């Protein structure tokens, strides 16, 4: 708007004060005249909102409307009309020399960590990490942003620094390069607090001693623990994500962001095709596949869960889908025992089960339209005639429709130690599979 020569005043609620200012700066208008109303606006009556309008800006303490009119009419000063390019400073290339304790505090206090202790990335440690890949340290790996922000670029060396900090060994490095090359940050800026997950396939799982048996998704092995954590550090330091109030707006946060749900598939004990092979890779390829969405939950609450004689895991998984939003897909993690039982039931391929689940998990069109994000993201596509959303918005409220457009929206992966036939369900969407071998 200002670019068009029209004076404008953005107005936001108080909660977004920091965000509005820093966003304006990133877009090149550090002195934009933003005004703020009390928070929230949502759910308030007309009378309450009139009181906001006639009251003060809670940030500046001045009358709101006076501020708006001043914002449109008070002449600009020299700084406001500045033009040109401005470089953003991220500090010197090396910190120190200093003691390890002081460096630990420095990294923590400057938002470069997840607030847990790190391995200090000394030049020696970073060099050792770089030996984990044949790629040149100065090669640009990719670009990353945590949302609708200008993306930052980064090199192999910068990924290595973060890998050291997370506690990774040099042999893990190609996985981190593969993850970073996707440009996907593990901390998205949305006000919804999203979860992230990665599925790792191929012989590298055993080479690195990844845990895919008992406690597969818990804190029981170094590669599972540190590779997942490194994704969050990469999101913060290379993608400028995870700054609360600026590039992270998740109101409540998500507890899975500490590790980002690292899943090494238990290919050995699974009776089904490994995930990367489904995606067109060879069994001997090493691949990391990334997911994003809401959460992961256990199947214990499903109808008929864990029944004694003949558990019907197909019904149970379908039942768990009742509390998923259609905006994100389903990632189902099955213990090998669960898979054995499903194969006995006749689901000898993943495709047979996803096909059944897709056909047999239905909801009314009304429930679909009333679920989170659907109005924001699917409705505009429905208006453009995109299927199946167009049909799902046209049909009567009581019509039963599937949760997702295709059976492919349901992903099955095997992990677990066969101590009990359990499964977990993530409301998570597949984004991309990246070859790890290319980064070796």
């Amino acid at each position, binding site marked *: 708007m200002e670019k068009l020569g029209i004076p404008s005043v953005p107005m936001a609620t108080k909660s977004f004060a*920091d965000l509005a200012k820093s966003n304006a700066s990133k877009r090149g208008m550090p002195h934009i005249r933003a005004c703020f109303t009390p928070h929230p606006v949502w759910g308030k009556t007309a009378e309450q909102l009139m009181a906001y309008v006639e009251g003060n800006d809670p940030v500046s303490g001045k009358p709101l409307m006076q501020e708006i009119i001043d914002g449109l009419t008070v002449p600009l000063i020299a700084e406001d009309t500045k033009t040109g390019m401005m470089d*953003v*400073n991220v*500090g010197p290339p090396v*910190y*120190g020399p*200093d003691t390890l304790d002081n460096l630990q505090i420095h990294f923590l206090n400057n938002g470069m960590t997840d607030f847990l202790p790190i391995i200090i990335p000394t030049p020696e440690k970073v060099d050792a990490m770089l030996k984990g890949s044949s790629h040149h340290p100065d090669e640009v790996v990719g670009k990353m942003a945590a949302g609708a922000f200008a993306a930052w670029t980064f090199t192999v060396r910068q990924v290595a620094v973060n890998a050291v900090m997370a506690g990774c060994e040099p042999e893990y490095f190609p996985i981190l390069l593969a993850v970073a090359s996707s440009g996907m940050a593990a901390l998205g800026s949305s006000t919804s607090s999203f979860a992230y997950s990665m599925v790792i396939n191929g012989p590298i799982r055993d080479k690195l001693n990844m845990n895919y048996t008992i406690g597969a998704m818990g804190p029981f092995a170094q590669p599972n623990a540190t590779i997942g954590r490194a994704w969050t550090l990469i999101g913060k330091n290379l993608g400028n994500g995870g700054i609360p109030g600026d590039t992270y707006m998740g109101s409540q946060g998500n507890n899975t962001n500490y590790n980002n749900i690292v899943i090494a598939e238990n290919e050995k004990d699974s009776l089904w095709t490994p995930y990367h092979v489904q995606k067109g890779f060879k069994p001997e390829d090493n691949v990391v596949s990334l997911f994003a969405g809401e959460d992961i939950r256990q199947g214990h609450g499903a109808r008929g869960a864990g029944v004694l004689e003949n558990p019907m895991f197909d019904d149970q998984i379908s039942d768990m889908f009742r509390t998923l939003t259609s905006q994100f897909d389903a990632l189902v993690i099955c213990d090998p025992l669960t898979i054995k039982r499903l194969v006995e039931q006749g689901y000898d391929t993943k495709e047979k089960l996803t096909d059944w689940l897709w056909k047999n998990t239905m909801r009314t069109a009304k429930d679909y339209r009333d679920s989170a994000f659907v109005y924001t993201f699917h409705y505009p596509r429905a208006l453009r005639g995109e299927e199946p959303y167009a049909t799902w918005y046209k049909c009567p409220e009581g019509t039963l429709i599937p949760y997702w457009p295709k059976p492919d929206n349901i992903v099955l992966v095997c992990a677990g130690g066969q101590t009990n036939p359990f499964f977990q369900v993530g409301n998570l969407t597949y984004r991309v599979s990246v070859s790890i071998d290319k980064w070796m």
Partner: protein
Amino acid sequence: MNRRKLLSLLGMSPVLLTGNPAQAGQTKHAAAPAADPGAVKITTVNPKGTPPSIQLIPMAPRLDSLDGKTVYLVDTGFHGSDALLHQVELWFNRNMPSVTLVFKRKAGPYAQDDPPLWKEIKEKGNAVIMATGH
């Protein structure tokens, strides 16, 4: 946070923010590094708690043979252990018909003890086979 602090967090040049030291600056400057400081040895404490001592339990004397004895088959309640013990029972019937078998499901959830059952076995039984795990 005020605008200056927010902008400096972004790493914006002090040209725009006269007088405000950039936040992402150096740590306190210190002297040059000592020779190979990483090789210096330090001492750390063991974080482990104190485990209880273990009272060794001598195993019960074994029987000379099972012929004519009473063997209790105890089901601890995990999925499928009853079916397994039933097969064990059939095996004895086929191979050692002189053995008397008594099948018992342990009372209560699997973590709970069942003293009446232990008392009964002590009085009437000669040996026990317990099935756990699923």
